[in-house]
């Protein structure tokens, strides 16, 4: 779920400058640093005062460095903002994290079961930030919830689908 208020402000106020993006806004999120947004064309935008907006085209900026991603959601936690989606070519889940919006690092989506390590296979549908637990929660296909805490090797997968 995204925060509607910034979008409404952008839409309703003729005096609030809007970010110059090409795509449709599909999500916004706010933390103590800034308000962030995501479009369906993989543009990520943010502003500290909702007047001056920075915009990057993620796939363009990282062409040759990260494989192109189709994004579906954005969330902001304490000290970071995260976007999720799937890699366009492989369809595998993808998650990237930034602190201030202009530099993005890939978050590993591995998890342990017993003593084996697996990669998340279910595609994320949405993401939210759990500030109390200091983790991101990905809602994925097949009833999977994927928890991404601060610790890099502590991801957890829980299945909540119908039996």
């Amino acid at each position: 779920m995204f925060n509607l208020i910034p979008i409404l402000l952008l839409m309703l106020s003729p005096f609030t400058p809007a970010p110059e993006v090409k795509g449709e806004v599909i999500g916004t999120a706010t933390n103590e640093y800034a308000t962030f947004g995501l479009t369906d064309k993989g543009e990520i935008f943010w502003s500290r005062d909702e007047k001056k907006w920075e915009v990057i085209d993620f796939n363009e900026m990282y062409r040759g460095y990260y494989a192109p991603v189709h994004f579906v959601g954005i969330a902001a936690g304490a000290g970071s903002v995260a976007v999720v989606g799937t890699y366009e070519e492989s369809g595998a889940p993808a998650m990237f994290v930034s602190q201030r919006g202009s530099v993005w690092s890939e978050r590993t989506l591995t998890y342990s079961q017993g003593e084996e390590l697996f990669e998340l296979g279910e595609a994320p549908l949405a993401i939210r930030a759990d500030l109390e637990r200091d983790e991101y929660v990905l809602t994925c296909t097949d009833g999977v919830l994927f928890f991404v805490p601060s610790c890099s090797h502590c991801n957890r997968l829980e299945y909540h689908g119908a039996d």
Partner: protein
Amino acid sequence: MIMKRFLNFLLLSAAVLSLGLMMASKPSADRKKDTKTPIYMNTSYSFEERAVDLVSRLTLEEKQSLLGNSMAAVPRLGVKAYNVWSEALHGILSGANPSVGIQGPTSFPNSVATGSSWDPDLLEREASMIGDEARAIFQTGTKGLTFWSPVVEPVRDPRWGRTGESFGEDPFLAAVMAGGYVRGLMGPDAKYMKAVPTAKHYFANNSEFNRHVGSADIDERDMREFYLYPYKELIEKDNLPSIMTAYSAVNHVPVSASVYLVDKIARRTYGMKGYVTGDCAAIEDIYTGHYYVETADEATREGLIAGVDSDCGSIYQRYAISAYEKGLIAMADMDRALVNMFTVRMRTGEFDPEPMVPYTLMTPSTVNSERSRALAMEVATKTPVLLKNEVVPGTTTKALPIDLSSIKSIALIGPQADKVELGPYSGRPEESSRITPYQGIKQYIADKGLDVDVTVASGASTKSKSNLLYIGYFETVKADGTTRRYDATQYSSSSDGITVGSGMGDEEQVRTIDDGSWTAYENVDLVDVEQLTVGANIPTEGGIIEAHVDGPDGNLICTIEATRASGKRVGGVYGTSTPMTEKVLKLGINELKTLYLVYKAPEDEEIDPSIVKSAADADVAVVFVGTDENTATEEADRLTLLLPGNQVKLIQAVAAANKNTIVVMQTLGCVEVENFRNLMPGILWTGYNGQAQGEAIAKILFGDVNPGGKLNATWFKSVNDLPAITDYTLRGGSGKNGRTLWYFDQPVSYEFGYGISYTTFKYSDFSISKSTVTPDDKIVISVNVTNTGDYDGDEVVQVYMTTPDAPASLQRPIKRLKGFQRVTIPVGQTKTVEIPIDCSDLWFWDMDAEKMTYDQGRYVFEIGSSSKDIRGTVTATMRGQLTPALKTVVADCGLSVLRGGETAQTAVTACLNDDSFINLSDAKVEYTSNNPSVVAVGKDGKLTAGRMGVATITAKVTYKGTVACGSFALKVMPELSLSSLKVDGKSILKAGADQYSVVGKAGAAPVVTATSSDPSLDLVIDQAKSVPGTALVTVLDNVTGDKAEYAVNFGTKPVSDEFKSFGKQWTVVRPDTSACAVDGGMLKITTGAGDVTLANNNASNIVLQSANGDWTAETKLTTSAVPSNPAQNAGLIAYEDDDNFVKLVYGAPVFGRGMPQVQPGQTMPGSVQLVAEDNGNNKTTVNVSLAGVNLKADTIWLRLVKQGSRYTAYYSVDGKKFTKVGQADLLLKDICAGVIACDGVRPAMAGRGGFGAQQAQPQPTVPMTACFDWFHIK
């Protein structure tokens, strides 16, 4: 004359030509030619120089994003994303990736198994193969080359949940085996590393249940001799390039926050050059586990300052900028960490052309190649340990090897008979590569063309009785529907061993629950309770929760089956509570009761009689038993050493049914065997033995391979022999046993180093190359070993050392392993085994002298087949201590980047070979720079930055004839200076000046133009709006955010005032005419509340005139009284605004230590204060007490001199002789000069008694009148 001139010209030309030729031959000349390739991509520079150059180009946000294990891509610099975290404990931790042509990586035997091979060369070959597979996978761009392996922790306690990942209990064995791994993984190339090993977990971290919150409390002897020993050996002998700091603390300081442990010991004592990573969430644990600091910012500071370069987590990545902005860390702290990280990445060749790097040719087919699989099989045959091999009752034949030609049937029984157990940190090898014992044996028999019937059945479970459950809460539900929840961690009493923790999760839970454990809760309202819910997490199999009253054995009121078998959800070791509900048996309870939750393991299943019959019917019964992931793991130690589940019952039943029973155990470490070891003729043990375990065991059972492994740990008779797992000390006493072969002196089931063979070996002709030794010597111990049996075989000759002449008070170990060699000896042959011993390795730690020491007298070397099976001894006499020699020199200056013109100071530490540090004044230190025009270094180590570029500074230390060097790289960035500064086209530029004054007439401001010293820098000019006014020129490095400001102050000539009247040149800030007037030839200001310091921008009557040039201002001030506490003050001010000023005032008295004391009845003297404030932040404060100064009639002269941005303050008591107060440097704009008088604002500490004994209570301020006789400015 002409000829002479011509000859001079020729000579001069020749000299110039020679100089040119000489310069052209220097390496720096080559670099200068290539101006297009940035330094960090230029292979003619050192890796560290290149790393420093790269880091200098990063923005602040980029730096932060690179401090975690998921290092971001930086496309504008061509830097790829990189995940620092990969694992390769016994094979690459990953699975197949068909999309890039990669099969499942080879899974070799786990460390607990390879440790029992005692063959470091074999492990080196294995690690080299792992490195090849790593390179093949890296080429596909899906993984990095930094691997957080090996685990080098000596196994202090076999209950440790990660025992399976370690090489064994002895530090020497762990170090030698790990050395093979490290060398193999890094590869032989002198320049590039094939892959990067990281030894972990640094250090003394071997109890899982409290690893995030616990502390290993140990003395320096245990620390140095036992826990740190493997790291010392790996760093000093094998150039280990990385360590991982543990979650836990040592002596209550989190290792990840310890400058002493990380910087002083690992880097400066042992000499580690490379990077340090924290364990995943170790930085977070600094504040959430250990509460060592309070915030994430502070934890970031602690980690970076200690020297932890990378955070497996996101604390650094989220809080580094915040910590920097709060002044908790400097840019240099981030730079240092990133230079270490990028130097390591560069050492893998990541930034170099592929043809230069020898390891880039690995193709995907390298992974799971035939060669690799064959090696996995070879290793798996070298690890098993034969524990028992006796004659089968009723025969004349030993149990092993099994002669297939003499049997018709073999029964394979046990939960591991048809299973491949790879152990912890296992990748996923191809299914076809995983061979179970059943598959291996069947295939072996088929390959031999034999007709032997093989049956297989599990017959038992491996359900663990340790760590049954984690309990978060319980809840009662009454008949009327009311519920009450109780925190299960708030028990009033419990059985022994119960702990509370949250592990990696957030929920505090009752943990370490064993079969029979209980927790009790007083005053629980059970009146009319119908239902009980327990919030429980099942880590593996689960258990039964019984609720009792009147004691743990009292009346049972409820039973909850919290087991996997009953269909309950299993959360794993990181799981949170799941509610589990059952009805409560009402017993007519009508008062508050103590509720007991008693935890029990499910009953073991009975052994299926058909299984026993199958054993009885076979010629040979082989029972495969062991441990698995449910027995112990990360976050969960074993609570028992028994084989899990009902495996012991199975063994006993099968052994009773068939006299020819062989037990094959595959476990993470020692298990209790006293309850079955005498029941059968044959016992084999192996650690988790890799993908080929089935094939290997077949070869061993049937005699193709003669087992030659030796136990890498003591096998205790009982868990009760062990001290508490939280006790990290090694030496026994006060009723507790010592630990490991070093200090445990009770009977054991099998001693360290034990292992027998199908053959027998005889030892003879023991000798030692020297009978009198010093620690400087290297000796050889030699023995002849003869194979006196019927099979070719391997023997591991072991050398143990004791110092029997050491005083008993020193509590030396019973013995220590100091040499070994595994040799293959054919039947009937004799081999001379020569084992080198470096006498410098025979040290102990002297806690008083803080250095290594050597016992004097006899050193007895016991040579044998195990630590107890000693076949002979040789003795040498030690005389003297180690000849001191320099070992590790570390030089640095605290910075990685300088700006042109800046200076820094080199700091050096020098450590000797006895791990003590020298006083550098006893040594000669010489400094050199390989690029003096970039960074010059003086004889005293002072550094001066010159032109842009990189340089390496080296400190060469000479001490008692030995020499060692340390070096570091520096990058010099362009100076943030101006190459031109003009006013209306006329140059005013002065070297070193940042403030310029131009005095003229009021009106339109002149135009300022400027250029920066380097085209890469940005220039912003903010023109003055008028005269008076200030033009501000900013030189900006857009990458780093650094900037320098230059102010051109346009001013009119200031006007002195004798205060006959109020001059037109004056303006007043916050005028209050009732308190400010010219009267009697003076400007009189009566003080009121307020000031301009810090946030208090409310002083009235600041009288100012424009003074935007350089000047000297002076006034004669008389006050109606000594300025009173806490902060009354009056004097001169240079003012831009309320947040930017310099003031020189006569103020309230100053108290503190060292100040002259005032006697009762005496008036307290005031003080002279110089205060500078920059953007609201205090920049300078100088307080000079006037105690003892003869101030007549409260009259003082004040003088403030402005020259550029420097303000120098003076005072005088007679108007003639001036005393300097101090200086402040502050760049102000649109400057006004004038006077101020105010009551000031009480400082934060006033009123707490901190200002001397005289002031018990804060005193109210009585307004004072400040009379300025005149104001002179010139």
